[in-house]
């Protein structure tokens, strides 16, 4: 095993699935995994030594002596559930160097494969032209063709290929995508679950737990788990109250344009809504310009 791995125990698991996340927009994946870890009371069993991957983020000096240096944590947890054994990986930060990210992702896979992992899920954000009062959907992206049909059956979920104008193309940036690419290279099936976040929220460093909930609904269905997600509802309400406060500071004409996103559809199969593709582009352009200007003022 790689020397950057520290094991606290070696769990015996039966064909576990791995669910992994690193921080990203709206912290959607991390919130989803942290909620799942807490709800399942998953146990810590390993972590990746951080110093080769990260610059330290905090220092403590006591009475003139270096007491500690703290780094982002990258930890593995496990849980034997009645239905499915689970591995969870929660990354505190994505390494800023591409090769370090590649190395870390390989380490995560190495641990999972050594424990007999059968499938990988990652959780992240999908920036979408939606309104914050709507229930976010989940964009699913499997790493092999055989999973496409299965993915289409998930609730409240759309495939990248079903999004208007994308033609099945897209990019999943960062390690949440890379892990599935490397899993594919090792013939390990995997699916990336991306919770929708409104485009105008995605530019701010605010969490978006509503999307984390959407991801967890899909994930727990798949894993056959029953998990109480009410804590996410509370977090989502709090965030929404803050968004609403901010929302009412936006000039009315911009707010009206954003409100039109309540009726926007970008799914191919759905009947055309009241808003045309041209309207949608115009709305997004205006909204983006407003926030760019505001960003400069701030």
């Amino acid at each position, binding site marked *: 095993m790689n020397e950057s791995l520290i094991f606290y125990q070696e769990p015996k698991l039966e064909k576990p699935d791995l669910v992994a996340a690193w921080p990203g927009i709206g912290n959607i994946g991390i919130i989803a995994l942290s909620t799942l870890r807490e709800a399942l009371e998953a146990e810590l069993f390993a972590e990746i030594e951080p*110093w*080769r991957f990260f*610059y*330290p*983020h*905090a*220092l*403590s*000096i*006591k*009475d*003139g*002596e*270096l007491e500690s*240096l703290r780094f982002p944590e990258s930890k593995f947890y496990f849980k034997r559930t009645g239905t499915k054994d689970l591995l969870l990986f929660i990354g505190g930060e994505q390494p*800023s*160097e591409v090769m*370090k990210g590649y190395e870390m992702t390989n380490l995560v896979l190495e641990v999972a494969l050594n424990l007999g992992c059968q499938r990988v899920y990652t959780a992240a954000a999908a920036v979408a032209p939606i309104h914050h009062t709507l229930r976010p959907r989940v964009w699913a992206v499997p790493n092999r063709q055989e999973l496409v049909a299965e993915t289409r059956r998930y609730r409240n979920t759309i495939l990248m290929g079903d999004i208007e104008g994308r033609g099945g193309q897209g990019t999943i940036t960062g390690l949440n995508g890379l892990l599935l690419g490397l899993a594919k290279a090792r013939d390990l099936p995997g699916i990336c679950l991306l919770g929708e976040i409104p485009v105008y929220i995605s530019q701010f460093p605010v969490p978006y737990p509503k999307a984390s909930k959407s991801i967890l609904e899909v994930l727990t269905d798949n894993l056959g788990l029953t998990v109480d997600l009410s804590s996410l509802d509370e977090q989502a309400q709090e965030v929404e109250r803050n968004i609403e406060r901010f929302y009412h500071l936006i000039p009315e004409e911009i707010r009206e344009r954003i409100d039109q996103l309540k009726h926007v559809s970008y799914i191919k199969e759905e009947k055309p809504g009241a808003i045309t593709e041209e309207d949608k582009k115009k709305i997004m352009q205006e909204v983006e310009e407003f926030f760019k200007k505001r960003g400069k003022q701030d």
Partner: protein
Amino acid sequence: MSEGHGFKIYGTPRLQNPCLIVGWSQDVGGLGPKVLDFLIRKLQPQEFAQFNPAGFFSLAGVPVEDNVIQFPQSKFYASEEKDLLLFQSDGPSQTHYEFLMLILDIAEQICKVKEFYTIGGIISLMAHTSPRRVSAVVNQPLLKKPLSEYGVSINLEYQTPLGARPTLSSFLLWVAQRRNIAGANLWTEIPFYLAALEDPRAYKQVLSVLDQRLNLGIDFAELEQEIEKQNRQIAELKEQEGDVHRYITMLERGIMLSEKESEVLANKVAEFLQKRD
């Protein structure tokens, strides 16, 4: 010459039980580079190793400073006479841990270093006429007593504030602690209005600590002249500019300046001293 992953060695200094002094090129008041330049000039050590920049620095282009192209450098010097090792370097932009490990690999495995000091400036809301305090952060308690004997403050308490991150020197201190190499970060106060300029009084203060600790036999006459010259120039400015006089007097009396007053003072001192140079 031997060449390893990330470095080249082109000399074999004969050292007994050397200490290492580390200075980074980018530092408040130019403290790190000025102190290292001074030691290199005065002690005439032999340059014997350097790091290859690839892998540690972004080589996507080169920065230009004061109309001149810059290129990252990381060099080791050794003074056999003083049994001293110096490392002068730009701070790496990537693979920081490997970079710091390599410094210690060369220092410990090739030169048998068991003790090291890093040099760094910290901005202080003080007047330039006040004595500069040097504070040490150690990675082994055994260094506290000897340093305190040279007037170094050894009781610093600190937590990284939100949004800030530890310095490279702190990271090096931590890496060395894990390898059981004793070291100290020496932080020297620099008045905020000299932070972007030079502060010979701070250079002298930290050099005096190193001189006593490592028996370097430094002649401080040159630095004393620089201090005197800077004091004279600022005194001249105080006579010309009433607000500069007032603000420095306030600092001398321990009265805090407002943000605006601090900015005016820093700008006027910078403009005046740069013109004189």
